[in-house]
């Protein structure tokens, strides 16, 4: 016989009371777990869609005009190409891909074309800085979305709408946007003379409906040579993890490159922030409800239990159980309630999420193991909080309540 066994035997005696006392806390935890299970999947889906839009942060010289995000780099002043290394060296979390560019308008025949020098992925990854930062391989292309495969399956199914990373680009090769190819009447394998140099059209890009359709892409270092702007770029495009952007990635980048203008696609960030905020608000509201309702419910259960057991507690006090032991008994009981409430609430919430997730968010929901810890913490916290006053009052029960006369 010890305090733990005494608490357990008393629990077994009052099983029905236990169930009714736990109801509010279990339901509250289940709702929080259910919402969180769905919202985690939904946030990931939003991130996948946003990542598929392509680069979402633009590093520009201070003097550049950012009225139009998509054409801000055209004819912009320049910044050193070495800034790419600085970003990589800073090892900032959430920088998933980088693309330095030099963009200028130029005449090809009678047509004015936007010529953009880019650095293909194979050259970026070969930079020593990338190797030092450990962002090689999969990490380079990783985003806040779960995986690359998931990107494709959950994002745009139409390949034409996906903005792809250019893996390699030879010094005498060019990629021609869909509209530019039409204007210039060139196709894959044709030659194109740009600023007196011959380039072979390696590929005509699919129509995207963006300014990229009007561009011709050549190797960045070739463009720097053609425009006589060595080691300079007009912009650095960054694919930033959407969550990281909403958590202040832009500010961190500004600290790394203080003499630049760093901008992002406003609605992308605001969409992510609003989604996160809404989910967090809903969870917070339920957390407040559970603290109040669950706390009051547990407090009420404990108080009813203590009232029913006044004589028993009085007798325990009489035979030598001091106030601390009584508090300990009551709080142990609350702890057990909290553990049961947390586990049952987690299971119910997860099942509800798995059932309702496909209905509400159109996404399959899987159990999130980390939520068991949060469920337990909330449930135990609420139970202990609700049991505080009843436990204190139980300790104050006079031992002589058992005696025949006073």
């Amino acid at each position, binding site marked *: 016989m010890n305090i733990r066994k005494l608490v357990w035997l008393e629990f077994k005696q009052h099983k029905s009371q236990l169930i009714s006392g736990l109801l509010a806390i279990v339901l509250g935890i289940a709702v929080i777990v259910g919402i969180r299970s769905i919202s985690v999947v939904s946030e990931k889906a939003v991130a996948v869609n946003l990542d598929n839009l392509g680069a979402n942060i633009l590093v520009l010289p201070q003097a550049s005009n950012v009225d139009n995000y998509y054409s801000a780099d055209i004819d912009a002043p320049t910044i050193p190409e070495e800034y790419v290394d600085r970003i990589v060296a800073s090892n900032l979390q959430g920088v998933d891909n980088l693309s330095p560019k030099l963009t200028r308008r130029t005449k090809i025949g009678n047509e004015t074309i936007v010529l953009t020098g880019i650095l293909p992925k194979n050259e970026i990854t070969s930079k020593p800085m990338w190797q030092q930062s450990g962002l090689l391989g999969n990490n380079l292309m990783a985003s806040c979305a779960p995986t690359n495969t998931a990107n494709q399956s959950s994002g745009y199914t139409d390949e034409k709408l996906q903005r792809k990373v250019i893996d390699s680009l030879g010094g005498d090769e060019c990629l021609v946007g869909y509209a530019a190819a039409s204007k210039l009447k060139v196709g894959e394998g044709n030659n194109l003379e740009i600023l007196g140099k011959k380039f072979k059209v390696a590929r005509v890009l699919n129509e995207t409906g963006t300014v990229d359709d009007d561009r011709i892409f050549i190797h960045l270092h070739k463009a720097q040579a053609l425009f006589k702007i060595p080691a300079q770029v007009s912009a650095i495009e960054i694919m930033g993890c959407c969550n990281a952007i909403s958590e202040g990635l832009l500010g961190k980048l500004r600290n790394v490159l203080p003499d630049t203008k760093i901008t992002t696609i406003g609605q992308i960030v605001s969409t992510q922030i609003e989604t996160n905020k809404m989910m967090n608000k809903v969870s917070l509201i339920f957390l407040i409800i559970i603290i109040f309702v669950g706390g009051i419910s547990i407090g009420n259960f404990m108080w009813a239990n203590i009232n029913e057991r006044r004589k028993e507690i009085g007798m325990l006090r009489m035979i030598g*159980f001091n106030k601390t032991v009584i508090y300990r008994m009551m709080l142990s009981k609350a702890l057990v309630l909290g553990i049961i409430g947390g586990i049952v609430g987690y299971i119910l919430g997860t099942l509800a999420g798995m059932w309702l997730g496909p209905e509400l968010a159109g996404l399959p929901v899987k159990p999130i193991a980390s939520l068991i810890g949060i469920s337990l913490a909330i449930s135990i916290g609420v139970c202990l909080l609700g049991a505080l006053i009843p436990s204190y009052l139980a300790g104050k029960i006079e031992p002589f309540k058992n*005696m025949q006369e006073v």
Partner: protein
Amino acid sequence: MILKTTDLCKKYEHKDGTVKALENVSFEVNEGDFVTITGASGSGKTTLLLAIAGLIKSSSGQIQINGFSVNGASDRKLSDFRKKHIGFVMQSFALLPYLTAIENVMLPLAISKLKKGQKYQKALELLKMVDLENRKNHLPQELSAGQQQRVAIARALVNSPTLILADEPTGNLDPTLSSDILKLLKKINLEEKITILMVTHSPLAAEFGNKKINLENGSLN
């Protein structure tokens, strides 16, 4: 001498005026005594028992048990003192309905540092002593009133107390069972040398004591 009360007073404030439950009660109890406290209903018998156990605070006077001053001791010290030195036997038995006989006997040991096996052995020996070994796994509602009181007596003995305070231990029992319980208490008093202070309104039960205290309106008669 195991117990000494000196000018013990207990007053209650009531809307109709002050009620004097105990007034200048002084007496001594020697080790091994079986003291019976008698008196009419409302004479202050149980108040005296409660004050001795430190379960209510006296208004004035002194209570000494084995050199321990009950007056003014903290709740923790009093709880500790009761746990180690006092056993209680109540009229209503005060057994926990969800514990078996042996678990009820072990209850005071729940806060002791004895090992599980030691607690069990001690409780079992006491159940043997009160002839209830074969009922050790019975819940209180499965026992007769007399058996329940014997379990309560075993529980009172489990901490090897120096003093047993019994409040109308036969109040809920028929004459035959009452006699059995009183004989058991007497046996414990004589064989275990445990001092017993028993409140009773029954003159027959009072005869079991070697020392008698009679209270009348809170004063010794």
